[in-house]
């Protein structure tokens, strides 16, 4: 067997395994943190402090029937979860977890990741349309409009960093942060990116596509069993991707205090930073009410885009001068 093929297979297995593991860790984190924020213990029953609960939940979801509602388009209905899940796995291939832990090194890694994360919208669109449910359709309207408009400030804020490093390669951007993290000189870009990331991953306070009190469950109202859990996995995988881009571009990626096995131990710093950001995401979710749809758009067009434009302009001038 050629070594390149072997490498690809191992990578694929590891990446998919990591996506599932990540969903379990995040699911556990979310439920534990929300519980303690609300002054209750949360998961306690399965395993010590409920650590095995997510495995049991997963088994339950696998065992459940996927109900296809009457009047829906069965093919699209079944396709949507897969369409949502598959592109979420792909970005993991290019993420540098440490200096040598990267499956594929790509010159345009950042663009590749952003392209892959955008496909999720199509899945939501298909899911909402195929469900033949008005609430699902509402969720879809909202999700598409939200994702399309928040892509703009997201890209503009990242562009500021790319201007400074003149590289789309993730390793190149990490190398450029040898002496200081970019969050120190690009705080505005970081905040804009993080807020847009929240919106992009449909997390509260921007969780309009699945707004529970308005749309029951939004675009995945009709999904059960594995259909639902693929959306769930995709959401958590997307959150991880968004936070890892933030880490790579603004927090120095896997760089930190050098540990033994320098080429590989960077993964510890990387995961610490990513899960730190994910903690903030979860923390925000359990604090704020949900914004309204038009306010979401107003915020994007009135605040995020002008600020990211101004930030880009200032960065461009500074780069030219220095």
């Amino acid at each position, binding site marked *: 067997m050629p070594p390149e093929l072997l490498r690809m297979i191992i990578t694929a297995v590891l990446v998919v395994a990591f996506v599932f593991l990540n969903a379990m860790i995040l699911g556990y984190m979310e439920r534990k943190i929300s519980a*303690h*924020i609300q*002054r209750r*213990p949360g998961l*306690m029953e399965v395993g010590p402090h409920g650590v095995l609960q997510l495995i049991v939940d997963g088994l339950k979801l696998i065992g459940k029937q996927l109900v296809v509602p009457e009047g829906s388009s069965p093919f699209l209905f079944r396709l949507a979860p897969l369409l949502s899940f598959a592109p979420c796995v792909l970005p993991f291939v290019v993420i540098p977890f440490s200096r040598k832990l990267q499956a594929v090194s790509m010159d345009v890694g950042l663009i590749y990741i952003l392209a892959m994360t955008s496909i999720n919208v199509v899945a939501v669109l298909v899911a909402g349309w195929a469900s033949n449910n008005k609430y699902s359709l509402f969720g879809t309207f909202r999700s598409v409009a939200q994702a399309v408009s928040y892509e703009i400030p997201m890209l503009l804020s990242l562009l500021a960093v790319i201007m400074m490093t003149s590289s789309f390669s993730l390793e190149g951007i990490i190398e450029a942060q040898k002496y200081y993290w970019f969050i120190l000189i690009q705080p505005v870009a970081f905040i804009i990116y993080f807020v847009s990331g929240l919106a992009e991953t449909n997390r509260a306070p921007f969780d309009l596509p699945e707004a529970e009190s308005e749309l029951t469950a939004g675009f995945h109202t009709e999904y059960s069993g594995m259909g639902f859990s693929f959306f769930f996995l995709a959401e958590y995988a997307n959150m991880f991707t968004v936070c890892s881009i933030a880490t790579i571009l603004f927090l120095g990626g896997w760089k930190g205090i050098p540990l033994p096995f320098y080429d590989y131990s960077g993964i510890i710093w990387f995961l610490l930073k990513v899960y730190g950001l994910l903690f903030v995401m979860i*923390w925000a979710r*359990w*604090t*704020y009410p949900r914004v309204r749809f038009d306010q979401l758009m107003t915020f994007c067009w009135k605040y995020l885009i002008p600020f990211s434009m101004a930030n880009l302009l200032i960065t461009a001038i500074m780069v030219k001068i220095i």
Partner: protein
Amino acid sequence: MNVKTDLRAERGYFGELWFGAKSLLIGLKVTLKALFKPIVTVQYPREECDITPNYRGHVELVFNPETGGCDCIVCGMCARACPSDCITVKGEKKEGEKGKTLTLFSLDFTKCSLCGSCVETCPKSALTYSQDYNIAGFTREEFHYDLIERLKRRHQQPLAAAAGGN
């Protein structure tokens, strides 16, 4: 209670941004504080709250240690006072005894609205409230209580258990 800032003030473009960012950070502070505070809930089947002695559960007959039974005189006041007709009282006249003896006191707890009329009307104070709140069952017949039976069980089982232990 007073909210110090004017909530409806026109804040302008940057004022709104400043006000909003500040309020969001304050919100995060509140939840972060709560994250490190002890939990307030009780893990129910593992731990239980102390129930107040005034708790009004379903009705029970009062045990009279002198007679070894209850004080009920089968007057039927409780059954008449009950708004949902869930009490059935029957008694019979026994030879050589004054008044009637209780033979059946059944409570259909599925209908009971826990108002306490029966306890209040009982002329002999032979009824009281149960402290039992862990009530669950699979059939509705499980909630048709025979209170005489329950009284016997309550007061004989501890004795029997003590005797068996010796």
